[in-house]
């Protein structure tokens, strides 16, 4: 089994090629750095493994993705490189290709989106390109499945590029000098150039991988005389000139790129604000309205199954102490999570993935960068906020698209304020019961939008405060490509959002809620002096909770709900009913009467919603944070929203 590397700029359809060649379902995002973990899969009908490198603009190795790509190209074993280009942008894409050709000449060029050239008024002479570079050039379109067979055939070609180019004499001489001095088995021009540019990351990579310090005293001494900035400039000029020259020879352009109608809408102050509020509001409305039916259906189904299981247990005389915790603890918690969380999750991620694939998200980052900058964070934080509405853990993983560690931490630490799909059902239920007194979906969505805007505000405020204290500094560099809007296939999106996102989140949520189902049952069914532990704990929390406008039962529900936010509301109801089993949630009217009987007022409702927005992230999110940035920051991610929530509520309740 030998390896093939898949390289290219962001937005050239690299992941689509990967998916077609390997029949897998990797997700193509429309921004840099979507593929941080290298996806590897077998190419159908061959003996090759295809390795998908991150989409990058160059190998100058300033970002994590570039380092991963460069190290894989330099140090790993592979047979060939498939370099994917956007046919309508040969010049910009040529840059990286020329750099790659300095590392390895076994390259196949894949001109993707070839079928879009006519409408863009561009023609590309692929034969000439092939002659110039001395490589196989395959014309492709992943959208219409053109040229995939040719691409597979080209893997068998043994053509190796003979393309070479020289920098100015001074640099070439220096390269020769350095190559003389290097005593490392991998000596090539790329490494020599990197050393001349005083690129620290390559020294580090070689040290980590081979335990060799390539920067020997001789080399260091030699480099003292070298102006790295000048070398770097000259390399860039040369590669840029060459890209332009090649592009001018093979590309004929008859039309200039125009601003699309959507971009006019998205960048006009008035239409953009209206459009974006409508999108947010619309997403919630659609989610609330559509999720209702499958939710009802699922909970009906689960109730039926439960009574079936119960009857079975009775029939086979399963002892009570076995089936009660399993059925009334675990089963009810799990079925509640599935029926309440899953339908909105699927709908949300369908819409989100659509926005992502269509190229809308970079526009959001573009428009909100100014606000982000004021809050001391990076424009891409607007994107992690968006995905936080679906799932905070996903947003934490998604923060990888942010280059600087500081900006990434800001995005992670403030993401817990963004109510995720696990919290929406409770917030929506409370709004429906206490704010609008009806099932008027339009009004519910409106209130929800207000709370969401508040959550975003708090998230930015916290960013601002953190950027002045814990994470001092200014946000990193912001340059962002705004790719063309893409037409996307709905069935593909449905598949991606369902399989890659919704199902995997659901799986995690269920796994963490199983133990909590058991714990809840035990707390309720073990008693000291005839009072269940659950009641003892909630009584203990009562005085403190009152300060925050909550009560002991609510606070305890949030504490036990750490594994998954979805179970907070059923826990509250269970606490009030003093029932020993997780209750079956009936309609809003009956829940409301339970709550009101236990002293809920509009201010309890507000406080509960606010605490749901401002408390610690769920266990899954915390675990994700730990694996992304370590336990120190996990601690901060836990404590910051919690302290904010507690102090906010105490102050609020002093005044109302």
């Amino acid at each position: 089994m030998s390896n093939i590397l898949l390289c290219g700029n962001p937005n050239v359809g690299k992941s689509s090629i990967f998916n077609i060649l390997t029949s897998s379902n990797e997700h193509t995002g429309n921004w840099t750095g979507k593929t941080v973990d290298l996806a590897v899969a077998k190419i159908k009908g061959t003996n090759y493994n295809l390795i998908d490198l991150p989409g990058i603009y160059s190998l100058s190795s300033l970002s994590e993705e570039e380092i991963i790509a460069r190290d894989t190209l330099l140090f790993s074993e592979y047979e060939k490189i498939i370099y994917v280009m956007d046919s309508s942008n040969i010049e910009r894409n040529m840059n990286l290709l020329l750099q790659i050709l300095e590392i390895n000449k076994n390259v196949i060029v894949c001109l993707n989106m070839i079928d879009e050239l006519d409408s863009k008024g561009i023609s590309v002479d692929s034969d000439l390109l092939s002659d110039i570079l001395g490589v196989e050039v395959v014309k492709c379109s992943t959208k219409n499945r053109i040229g995939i067979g040719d691409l597979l055939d080209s893997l068998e070609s043994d053509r190796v590029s003979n393309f070479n180019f020289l920098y100015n004499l001074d640099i070439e001489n220096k390269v020769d000098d350095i190559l003389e001095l290097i005593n490392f088995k991998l000596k090539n021009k790329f490494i020599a150039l990197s050393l001349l540019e005083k690129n620290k990351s390559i020294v580090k990579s070689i040290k980590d991988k081979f335990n060799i310090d390539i920067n020997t005293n001789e080399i260091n001494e030699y480099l003292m005389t070298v102006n790295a900035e000048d070398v770097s400039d000259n390399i860039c000029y040369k590669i840029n000139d060459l890209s332009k020259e090649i592009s001018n020879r093979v590309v004929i352009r008859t039309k200039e790129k125009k601003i699309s109608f959507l971009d006019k809408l998205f960048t006009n102050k008035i239409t953009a604000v209206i459009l974006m509020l409508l999108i947010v509001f619309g997403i919630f409305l659609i989610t609330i309205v559509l999720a209702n039916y499958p939710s009802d259906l699922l909970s009906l189904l689960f109730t039926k199954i439960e009574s079936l299981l119960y009857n079975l247990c009775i029939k086979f005389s399963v002892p009570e102490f076995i089936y009660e915790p399993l059925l009334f603890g675990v089963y009810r918690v799990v079925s509640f999570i599935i029926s309440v969380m899953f339908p909105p999750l699927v709908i949300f991620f369908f819409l989100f993935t659509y926005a992502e694939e269509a190229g809308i998200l970079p526009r959001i980052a573009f428009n909100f960068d100014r606000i982000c900058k004021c809050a001391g964070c990076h424009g891409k934080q607007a994107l992690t906020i968006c995905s936080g509405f679906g799932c905070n853990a996903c947003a934490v993983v998604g923060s990888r698209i942010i280059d600087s560690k500081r900006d990434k931490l800001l995005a992670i630490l403030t993401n817990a304020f963004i109510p995720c799909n696990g919290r929406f059902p409770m917030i929506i239920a409370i709004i429906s019961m206490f704010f609008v007194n009806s099932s008027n979906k339009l009004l519910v969505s409106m209130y929800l939008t207000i709370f969401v805007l508040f959550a975003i505000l708090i998230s930015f405020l916290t960013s601002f405060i953190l950027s002045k204290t814990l994470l001092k500094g200014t946000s990193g560099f912001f340059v962002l490509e705004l790719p063309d809007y893409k037409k996307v296939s709905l069935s593909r999106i449905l598949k991606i959002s369902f399989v890659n996102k919704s199902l995997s989140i659901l799986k995690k949520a269920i796994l963490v809620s199983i133990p909590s189902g058991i714990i809840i049952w035990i707390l309720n069914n073990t008693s000291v002096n005839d009072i269940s532990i659950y009641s003892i704990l909630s009584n203990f929390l009562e005085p403190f909770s009152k300060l925050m406008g909550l009560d002991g039962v609510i606070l305890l529900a949030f504490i036990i709900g750490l594994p998954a936010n979805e179970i907070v509301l059923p826990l509250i109801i269970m606490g009030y009913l003093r029932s020993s089993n997780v209750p079956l949630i009936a309609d809003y009217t009956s829940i409301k009467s339970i709550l009101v009987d236990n002293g809920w007022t509009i201010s309890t409702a507000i406080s509960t919603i606010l605490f749901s927005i401002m408390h610690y992230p769920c266990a899954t999110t915390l675990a994700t944070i730990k694996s992304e940035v370590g336990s120190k920051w996990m601690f901060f991610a836990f404590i910051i929203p919690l302290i904010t929530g507690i102090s906010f509520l105490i102050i609020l309740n002093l005044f109302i």
Partner: protein
Amino acid sequence: MNLCDLKINESAIIKNINLKGIKKRRLYDMGFINGEKIEKVFDSIFKDPSCYKIKNTFIAVRREDALNIEVSYE
């Protein structure tokens, strides 16, 4: 003059990039390099960052960085 002086739909040629290190290299990689033609295509809703067309792609750059990109009319 610098990039910020460009009005929407106006184009110019990049003369120099007065930035150092990572920022300059990043801009080079995105096509912002001396002699390249650049056109301002639209602003974001808060006027910063702005979007420029360079090498036939749309790239957004913050005002603070655009101030350091020297340009001149053709």
